[in-house]
């Protein structure tokens, strides 16, 4: 099992290591992998790039504000300094804040193995709860994010408190020349795009109340009751987060520049 920052793996460390034979592959010494590389068309995050690496990068803050927003909310400095974007993808939690904003920016995941590299869109990466297209022999080498002109972007996270809390309901919205992207997390077995909500935005539909959104939300996500929240709370809050972003803040208006 590959290990980088360890902020997920060590949470239940004693149970995990005692229960089964596991060989740990320590990636933390691959210093060149802790990078932000800019080309004309994209930003590439290395396999070991941490949340803090992005927070302190002025260019990343300016061009990809949702990355900064998610990084500052995923946990406090103690998590930001160790947790990696690639680890957030690899852990495959449906509550992954980093995955939500990367997906809203149409990020792709570069998987490497002795058989060569494979690039997978993050929106196609997950197969189900904690399951992904990554084969056991593959490692996440990097994450590529296209540079686009964005005209609207929002990230909202609701947890038990503002810091160090795992998300109960989360939402990212991004509009660029590629169109609208709506991504929700903690409301389905995986972080996922919401095509019905995206279609409402593309159509410039009038949304008069959060309740109007529930049919689209029920097509796009499948929240459950678990230790952190309930299905009803999750779909209600998601409808209000979306309504607040789109109606109150006006990001979906057609006359917007």
């Amino acid at each position: 099992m590959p290990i980088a920052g360890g902020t997920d793996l060590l949470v239940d460390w004693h149970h995990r290591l005692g229960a089964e034979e596991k060989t740990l592959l320590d990636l933390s010494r691959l210093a060149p992998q802790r990078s932000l590389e800019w080309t004309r068309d994209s930003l590439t995050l290395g396999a070991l790039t941490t949340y803090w690496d992005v927070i302190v990068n002025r260019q990343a803050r300016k061009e990809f504000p949702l990355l900064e927003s998610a990084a500052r909310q995923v946990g406090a400095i103690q998590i930001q300094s160790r947790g990696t974007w690639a680890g957030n993808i690899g852990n495959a939690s449906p509550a992954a804040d980093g995955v939500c904003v990367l997906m809203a920016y149409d990020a792709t995941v570069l998987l490497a193995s002795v058989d060569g590299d494979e690039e997978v869109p993050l929106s196609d990466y997950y197969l189900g709860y904690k399951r992904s297209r990554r084969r056991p022999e593959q490692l996440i080498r990097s994450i590529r994010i296209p540079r686009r002109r964005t005209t609207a972007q929002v990230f909202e996270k609701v947890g038990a408190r503002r810091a160090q809390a795992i998300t109960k309901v989360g939402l990212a919205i991004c509009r660029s020349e590629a169109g609208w992207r709506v991504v929700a997390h903690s409301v389905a077995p995986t972080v996922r795009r919401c095509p019905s909500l995206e279609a409402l935005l593309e159509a410039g539909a009038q949304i008069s109340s959060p309740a109007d959104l529930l049919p689209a939300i029920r097509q796009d996500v499948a929240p459950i009751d678990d230790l952190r929240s309930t299905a009803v709370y999750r779909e209600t809050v998601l409808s209000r987060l979306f309504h607040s972003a789109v109606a109150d803040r006006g990001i979906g208006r057609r006359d917007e520049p």
Partner: protein
Amino acid sequence: MNGSTGERKTISFTLNGESVSMEVTARERLLDLLRYRLGLPGTKEGCGEGECGACTVLWNGLPVDSCLVPAFQAEGRTIETIESVDPAALGPFHEGGATQCGACTPGVVITARWILDNPGLLKTHTVRELMAGNLCRCTGYDGIIESIEAALDTQGGN
């Protein structure tokens, strides 16, 4: 490294300014290494799952939860614990009501020291946000925040 067969590995790192070399197993946490094998019990275990920040240490200059760090990753790293802090530097904490039962205090002081050593952080962050990873159930936080702000003022005036 293999987690279950007890395979050992010798690592070297810098701890509170001194070189340390020792054998570790794959399953040891940095927190246990510090407290039980290196005799530095100032770093506390609160939740043991990266929530409370009582076990905060500086890892190459950045705060980390030592309960979430596997000991073998310390190879070549620089680690500073509460034992490296000069007690005389704690004046503002005593004066500002920043400590009561003391369980959170070592972690709080380590994060505070990181802020005091890097005041440029305040261009983009508030003290309250930077301290958000250190839970305190006694003080209600205001004393902690105000004490750090007072220490920053004193430092800025020097």
